[in-house]
């Protein structure tokens, strides 16, 4: 890396050789934002801030391709939950569970809750199928439960389910 006096333009033949401290800081900030912002915000903000390399959505939600259908987790839970202390959820997928191509884990999140991360289920090909039933604690009111599934070859895929909780359970 070459350093040059302030106010002078970089004259290196290869731009990568000449990186200012400001540029290093800017690149670091962009990288950290790409990782942290999706964790901090929800809904449309998360969609806007996530790179397609990090979390993937169906390109056209009305026309989901067979490839996308394999990778997007299916969420089964009631739209209205009376007791937020006991909200059932089923996550299932039709993705193959072969030694070289399988779903490694499924994460359950709810950004409106005081405890955002609900749990992560790690799979191996010995599971045979992706299927998890569990019971969550959810805060009262309307919120969105996100499920992120990670394929060992094709990255992370997300699906969401809107839920209305009558009595909070947090």
């Amino acid at each position, binding site marked *: 890396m070459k350093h040059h006096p302030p106010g002078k333009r970089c004259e290196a033949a290869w731009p990568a050789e000449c990186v200012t401290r400001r540029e290093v800081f800017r690149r670091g900030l962009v990288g950290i934002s790409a990782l942290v912002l999706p964790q901090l915000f929800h809904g449309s903000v998360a969609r806007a801030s996530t790179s397609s390399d990090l979390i993937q959505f169906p390109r056209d939600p009305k026309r989901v391709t067979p490839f996308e259908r394999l990778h997007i987790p299916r969420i089964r839970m009631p739209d209205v939950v009376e007791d937020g*202390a006991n909200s059932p959820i089923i996550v299932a997928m039709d993705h193959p569970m072969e030694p070289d191509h399988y779903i490694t884990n499924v994460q359950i999140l709810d950004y409106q809750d005081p405890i955002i991360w*609900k749990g992560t289920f*790690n799979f191996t090909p*010995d*599971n*045979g199928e*992706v299927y998890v039933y569990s019971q969550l604690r*959810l805060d*009262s009111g309307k919120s969105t439960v996100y499920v992120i599934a990670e394929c060992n070859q094709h990255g992370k895929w997300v699906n969401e389910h809107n839920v209305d909780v009558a009595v909070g359970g*947090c």
Partner: protein
Amino acid sequence: MAEQHTGHAQNSIPPPQVIAPPRIRLPIRISKGKVIKVQAKMRHPSRTGIRMIAEHVFAKGEPAFYIKKMEVFFRDALVSTYEMSAALSDDPIVTFKLRASEEGPVRVVFTSSEDKAYEASTMLRFTEG
């Protein structure tokens, strides 16, 4: 001053902290190579460590106490792990799938937030050819 609520069910007394060993339930009919549904459950309270001050407003409360991890072993090999937060219900019930490739023991180990381990084991045997 706002009325302070503690714990989970806002208008009720928290249930007693009953802890009982885990149990595993397998399907009645199991044939070789099929993917079966396995249910693991345990009586254990789940305390989030926060208390509700007002609607959607929370503060630090009693210490968190919950099941933080569930590990599934089939024929002594680790098949799955479930890392949980305190935001799961009391008495967790987890259902998952398992490929019945061979006969052998299925073992489930629950670990609490205080690092106490509770385990259960059952034998997977084929009932159909």
